[in-house]
């Protein structure tokens, strides 16, 4: 089902957690809410679930205004970071809970509920564990049960709050791939919260980057990574290097030297230049380039990361070089960024 968040504002005791947030989620989409802690991503998720009420604004499920509905009526599947399984119930009873509490004709028979539970257990690859209690399962297994329980009610939208946050790296990667498969198989509209950018970029159809209660950018992994639209997104997603520069006559300057980047549309004056450390081109003779002395050099996995001091103010930036590149041994390195972007200085 489509979910539309329209101009939502949320305050906790006068302290604003979300300022005027709007977001359209398409039916069947897998969306990641990504941001540092305190960015409001979990608040947004809880607002969609109905676990919080917006101070202002509305949330639509399809054409219906869901903000007027109670949590029970919204029919959302919610998965918590720490699973929140019912410990006194077996795995099968946990999964069947949402069906068992229904009343009237919508409530399936006990047999039907059992059948549905074991079907979902097959889907989450835990067949045969119906009779276990949550205490007898590993963390990864518990989270799968929690997901099966959320899907049992055929939710309009599936909401996951840092679903892999409590698991170790290995299990995490495995579950990530698995969640994508499940999503492709069932087609539930899914929103998940994460602070792990790798998880968000790898898993989601679209990523919503949030900071300080606002949405910074919404886009596919490619759009977010290749064309960040704010200094925050540039800094938060992937590695980035920043240098204070000046724009004059459509050229970018560091101190009194042009660095060979033309910016005809940028506004004049102080600005910050952003680029990716691995996306640089080394040059031998510095005719319009950035040059600096090597201050530190570290081996990082398959590359060498070199820290340079640039210009008289000794601004430090990082670039990446191939491990055996001769320039890494030199004391002076000159380069030109490949893809770059300017933001006016704050």
């Amino acid at each position: 089902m489509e979910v539309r968040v329209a101009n939502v504002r949320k305050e906790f005791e006068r302290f604003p957690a979300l300022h005027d947030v709007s977001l359209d989620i398409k039916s069947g989409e897998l969306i990641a809410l990504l941001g540092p802690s305190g960015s409001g991503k979990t608040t947004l998720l809880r607002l969609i679930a109905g676990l919080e009420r917006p101070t202002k604004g509305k949330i639509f499920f399809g054409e219906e205004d869901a903000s007027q509905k109670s949590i029970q009526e919204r029919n959302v599947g919610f998965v918590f970071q720490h699973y929140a399984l019912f410990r006194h119930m077996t795995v099968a009873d946990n999964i069947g809970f949402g069906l068992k509490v229904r009343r009237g004709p919508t409530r399936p028979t006990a047999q039907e509920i059992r059948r549905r539970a074991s079907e979902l257990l097959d889907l989450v690859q835990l067949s045969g564990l119906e009779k276990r209690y949550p205490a007898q399962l590993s963390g990864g297994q518990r989270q799968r049960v929690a997901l099966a329980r959320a899907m049992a009610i055929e939710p309009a939208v599936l909401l996951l709050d840092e679903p892999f946050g409590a698991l170790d790296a290995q299990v995490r990667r495995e579950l990530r791939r698995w969640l994508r498969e499940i999503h492709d198989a069932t087609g539930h509209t899914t929103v998940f919260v994460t602070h792990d950018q790798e998880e968000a970029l790898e898993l989601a159809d679209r990523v919503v980057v949030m900071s300080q209660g606002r949405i910074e950018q919404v886009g596919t992994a490619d759009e977010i990574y290749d064309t960040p639209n704010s200094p925050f997104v540039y800094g938060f997603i992937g590695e980035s290097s920043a240098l204070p520069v000046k724009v004059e006559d459509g050229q970018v300057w560091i101190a009194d030297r042009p660095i060979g980047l033309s910016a005809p549309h940028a506004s004049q004056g102080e600005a910050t230049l952003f680029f990716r450390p691995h996306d640089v081109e080394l040059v031998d003779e510095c005719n319009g380039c950035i040059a600096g002395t090597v201050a530190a050099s570290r081996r990082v996995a398959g590359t060498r990361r070199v820290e340079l001091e640039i210009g008289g103010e000794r601004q430090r930036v990082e670039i990446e070089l191939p491990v055996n590149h001769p320039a890494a041994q030199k004391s002076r390195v000159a380069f030109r960024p490949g893809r770059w972007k300017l933001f006016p200085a704050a």
Partner: protein
Amino acid sequence: MTTAPAKAGWRFRQPSVIPGFGLTLGFSLAYLTLIILIPLSGLIWRSAALGWADFWAIATDRRTINALEISFGTAFIAAAVNVVFGTIVAWVLVRYNFPGRRIVDAMVDLPFALPTAVAGIALTTLYAPNGWLGSLLAPLGIKVAYTPLGIVIALIFIGLPFVVRTVQPIMEEIDKEVEEVAATLGANRFQTVARVLLPGLAPAIVTGFALAFARGVGEYGSVIFIAGNLPYKSEIAPLLIVIRLEEYNYAAATAIAAIMLALSFVMLLVINLVQTWSRKRYG
């Protein structure tokens, strides 16, 4: 050639590398022997001096049976009532913040601290036919003081803190997320409480019940004032023991005591087993 694995029988749990196991176990055993085992075996030894026939005669005496029935019956009812209202009190104290919450919280402990005789006298004045509450209930035909109903009320008063104080900490640990999940799955408030929260609290509630019940069975001070102490009607077993003692009939007194001891022990054992079972299941 395979060797069968050694049979695991009764074995001490592997002590940790931190020293002190021998010392603390030795101390605990010596202490329990001094404080509990020696007095109790003295009791049984004294009652054994009676001989089987006399013991049986005392045990099957109508007055003894009635006293035991009243003691265990009223204690059971009072503990059951306390389970319901104690759990509600604990819920209110844990879940809501209201002015005076700390005072109410402290008040729960009063029955612990108050001399039981004071409680008994206060309750008797209240519930006597010419007392505050007694005079209101009398026209309705309800007699509280000097009946088993009065005993139940005294025992409710005495047992309340046991339930509240055992349930409260477990309730504080309830994860809010579990309730939220239940709500998103469509459970209304009543279903959430009945199917999700209460089963989680069950072990603590059973413990509270056991403590309140055990205390109720042994309670003397507050009960004798309100009970009226009519033989066969509102005479509790501990009082009967005291009566026998005053008659210098030590053997009969210890015989009744031994019966009480055996009954209490069996009931607490059963409650303990129920608890071990539920712990094993829910982890």
